[in-house]
């Protein structure tokens, strides 16, 4: 009863019952909010049509090119720089025993500092501007990916490396043909964790040290009591988080399939 069997394919009616059941709560929440906000007339909580209108006014057209594009550019540069350097560094640390031992305490300590707490330090180093956003995103992504890749490399089976030795697969070929494919699953899970982290870091760093970008716009709206703009910003962040996550899931599947890994068929919720 409590364990729903997902292995057999359910009939069409069973499936539609389930979809209907799952959509009750979201629909109810939307309707309840709409009714509550339209009867309440609280400026803090605008009605849904007003919200949608504000969202369009804020982000379609000029707002998009002035704030959303710079934010996403910084996010893309910082995230990919951190990811690439993290994987390369992780492979180096994973292969070189001495280096891993020697850097372990320092890397471990940096990892426990919340990414946001590093913002003031980065402000001193980099000042206000694009380099701040890119720098702190790259930094916080780098260390998590570094550590998870290191563990993945250490966990590679000895037999695999022995086979490499026997067939004299060395250097670049070993890196691209053996080491990279072997660490893909762990790197992907690090990439997923750091993706949401980098959105968070992006927003907060823009709230502190930027004149443009999504975070800066939201904070400015909040400080000038422009509730429409503020809600538009909050909505955009939610949409951004959800769509980046969706894009990532699609990319993850494609990469796993093309490298011959098994894709979890059942949807997991963790």
């Amino acid at each position: 009863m409590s364990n729903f069997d997902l292995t057999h394919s359910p009939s069409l009616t069973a499936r539609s019952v389930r979809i209907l059941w799952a959509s009750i709560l979201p629909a109810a929440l939307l309707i309840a909010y709409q009714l509550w906000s339209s009867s309440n007339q609280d400026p803090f909580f605008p009605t849904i049509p007003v919200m949608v209108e504000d969202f369009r006014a804020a982000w379609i057209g000029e707002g998009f090119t002035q704030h959303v594009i710079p934010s996403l550019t910084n996010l893309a540069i910082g995230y990919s720089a951190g990811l690439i350097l993290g994987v390369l560094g992780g492979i180096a640390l994973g292969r070189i025993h001495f280096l891993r031992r020697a850097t372990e305490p320092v890397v471990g300590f940096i990892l426990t500092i919340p990414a946001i707490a590093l913002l003031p330090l980065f402000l001193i180093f980099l000042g206000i501007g694009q380099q701040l956003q890119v720098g702190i995103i790259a930094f916080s992504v780098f260390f998590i990916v570094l550590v998870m890749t290191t563990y993945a490399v250490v966990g590679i089976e000895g037999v695999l490396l022995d086979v490499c030795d026997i067939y004299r697969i060395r250097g670049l070929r070993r890196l691209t043909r053996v080491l990279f494919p072997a660490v893909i699953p762990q790197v992907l899970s690090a990439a997923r964790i750091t993706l949401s982290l980098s959105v968070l870091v992006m927003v907060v760093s823009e709230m502190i040290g930027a004149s443009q970008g999504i975070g800066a716009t939201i904070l400015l709206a909040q400080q000038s009591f422009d509730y429409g703009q503020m809600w538009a910003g909050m909505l955009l962040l939610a949409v951004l988080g959800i769509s980046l996550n969706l894009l990532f899931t699609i990319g993850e599947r494609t990469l796993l399939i093309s490298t011959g890994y098994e894709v979890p068929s059942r949807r997991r919720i963790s």
Partner: protein
Amino acid sequence: MTLRLLQRFAVPLIGIFVIAALWEIASTQGWVSTDSVPTLHDTVSRTVNLLTSSEFYEYLLGTLQAWAVGLAWAVAVAIPLGIVFGLNYWAYAFIRVPLEAIRPVPPVVILPLALLVIGGGLRYQATLIFQGAFWPLLITVIYAIRSTDSVSLDTARSFRLGAWRTIAFVRLPAAAPLIGSGLRLAAATAFGVTLVTEILGGASGIGTQLMIAQSGGDATSVFAVTIIAGLVGLIISGAFGKIEKSFLSWRVAS
């Protein structure tokens, strides 16, 4: 034996020493400006000074209090709810769509609204920390309960253990390790959100100290407070690592 012991401790110590020496030399020799990178000995003495000053303690206590209150609420609500939703497929299917939608939303989304509606202070901090830690923890608990090994469930059924005893003696022990790691993550997330609320204003704590030092151009204090934030993070992850380990030992009992 001694060689292995030497390897185990000497190499990390060498690493720490080399990095510390590089830092000290770079800052004292003027390779980097001391305006942005203070010397190591200045940073260490400032850290010690702060940790022994009663004024700084108040800020530290403020941070820890907000963290503890927000996290405690999140744990107290997420674990029972997670167990309920994990046990019943239809209940889980009912909340699944909003849950999946909220998961990737960054926890600072509601910060501007909370600051306006609640104002600053502990309640504002606790609210943000709560919602930052609650959702991931809830999802982990649901997943942990749902992923109980079906063989042990069947065994419980053939022993006619009954619903309550199955939950208490089979499902919870089996879910404990995952819940333990969920708790550790929630504690770390809560600490991060605590600092966000302080850095962006609205509450006072070590995050405020960071911003004051930064706007005053006091690089030494920024480094010192950042190190203290790291130490607090270390203590938190150490303590919750212990809890996670004790939860892990339940697995043997199950």
